[in-house]
């Protein structure tokens, strides 16, 4: 579990994260949502330790990353998997080499065990075997995302961070990637944090949602509570499209007291 206690982060005097607190639990998909410029990327980077916060605590199972040295953060990072917006696969390595890379760097496994583990991870994300030896540039964007997920889970991470996992993907592939993130979170009991403004993802897999506006936590709750939040800023953001307005109306009609 990751506990965020009252963190503040500013750049050149401009406060980007203003006294944010929340709990991101294991085995659930925690989503950080908000408009562009709301501070969600800064929050995610602060959680991972790429930004040092000005004040407050970020506790990875009671270990405060804000007080860690660079070496300690690096050691903690070995428990973290990350799915980047652009996949960030190493383009000089084949698909399977990408997944083997963290294992070769940090595990004590033999070569055969590393290959086996990489194959297992790739199969788990439904990568066809014929693609194992292809280069990242030779596979589709959706497949690249799958490989990135396989690489992220190869070291059995406790925490999985996903930055805009659906960006650049078609709706069907987005749905598959969302489902994969959801299933992997449950299967391996990972604390997953997803940074997104894709409403479909939020409604599909968001177990716990943190809504940011202007660097302030405006609302938090589950995707089921989102229809009845009563928070104007959240409603403005979530039900911006006509389709979701209709969905909200229908939901409120069906379960007015939920």
């Amino acid at each position, binding site marked *: 579990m990751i506990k965020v206690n009252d963190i503040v982060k500013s750049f050149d005097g401009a406060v980007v994260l203003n006294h944010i607190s929340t709990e991101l639990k294991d085995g659930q998909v925690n989503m950080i949502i908000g408009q562009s410029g709301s501070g969600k990327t800064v929050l995610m980077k602060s959680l991972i330790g790429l930004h040092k916060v000005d004040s407050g605590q970020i506790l990875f199972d009671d270990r405060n990353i804000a007080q860690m040295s660079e070496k300690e953060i*690096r050691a903690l990072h070995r428990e973290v998997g990350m799915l980047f917006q*652009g996949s960030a696969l190493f*383009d000089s390595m084949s698909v399977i080499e990408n997944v083997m890379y963290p294992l*070769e*760097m940090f595990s004590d496994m033999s070569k055969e065990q590393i290959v086996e583990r990489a194959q297992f991870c790739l199969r788990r994300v439904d990568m066809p075997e014929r693609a194992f030896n292809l280069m990242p540039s030779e596979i589709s964007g959706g497949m690249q995302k799958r490989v990135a997920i396989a690489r992220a889970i190869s070291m059995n991470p406790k925490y999985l961070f996903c930055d805009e996992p659906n960006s650049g993907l078609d709706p069907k592939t987005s749905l598959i990637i969302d489902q994969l993130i959801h299933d992997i979170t449950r299967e391996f009991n990972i604390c997953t944090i997803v940074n997104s403004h894709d409403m479909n993802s939020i409604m599909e897999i968001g177990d716990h949602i943190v809504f940011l506006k202007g660097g302030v936590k405006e609302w938090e709750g589950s995707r089921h509570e989102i229809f009845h939040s009563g928070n104007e800023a959240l409603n403005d953001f979530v039900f911006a499209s006509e389709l979701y307005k209709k969905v909200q109306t229908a939901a409120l009609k069906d379960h007015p007291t939920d």
Partner: protein
Amino acid sequence: MKDLIRHFGEYILLMGKVFHLPDRQRMFWRQYSRELEKQGLQSLPIIVIISLFIGAILTIQTKINTENPLLPIYTTGLLTRETLLLEFSSTILCLILAGKVGSNIASEIGTMRITEQIDAMEIMGVNSANYLILPKICSFLTMMPFLVIISITVGLIGGYGVGLFTDVITVHDYVIGIQYAFNPYFVWYAIIKSLVFGFIITSFSSYYGYYAYGGALDVGKASTKAVVNSNILILFADLLLTKLLL
């Protein structure tokens, strides 16, 4: 001035991250051997071609400019050899390699930076600067003495070719010239200089690539800056080393 100090500070901090024991020796050696091939062996054709032609051109120009019955027959060969040893095969060769190897390193690392591949390594807990840059520096420094010696040899062969295929100079005069008053220290001088220049090329190009940000255009700019600044630094270092070593 403020920018210069900032760049210098960032460069020193980066080198502090680079010069550590690698996380995994096996991975280091794998990268090292790849870089030997990429930076060293793949630079050989261009070095051979340029050295061969420059050796031949130097011989012709020296002969034309020293056409005087009072000058001894060994003058052309001697001057060709000294020019190759003292300046061409160390300094000029490194200026050429700054263009080839330097831009390659800066664009490779810069692309990795803007496509978040370096961030991905950092998140995995890898010391990305150490993993990416140290093998490049070590492999290039390993290859430099060989490249310099090959360049000197091929340059001399170029001059020999002029004697063999033209009537500018006789082979006999040229061979006497390149053997006359040979000082082996000049070979060491060329090698020492090339090692310093090799470090400048790899470390500065890596620095510009590592701190690249933005898009493809910015990687191009970082690559250009890497080449231009490496060239300027090589010339400064050349002046300093010439004063110190000769």
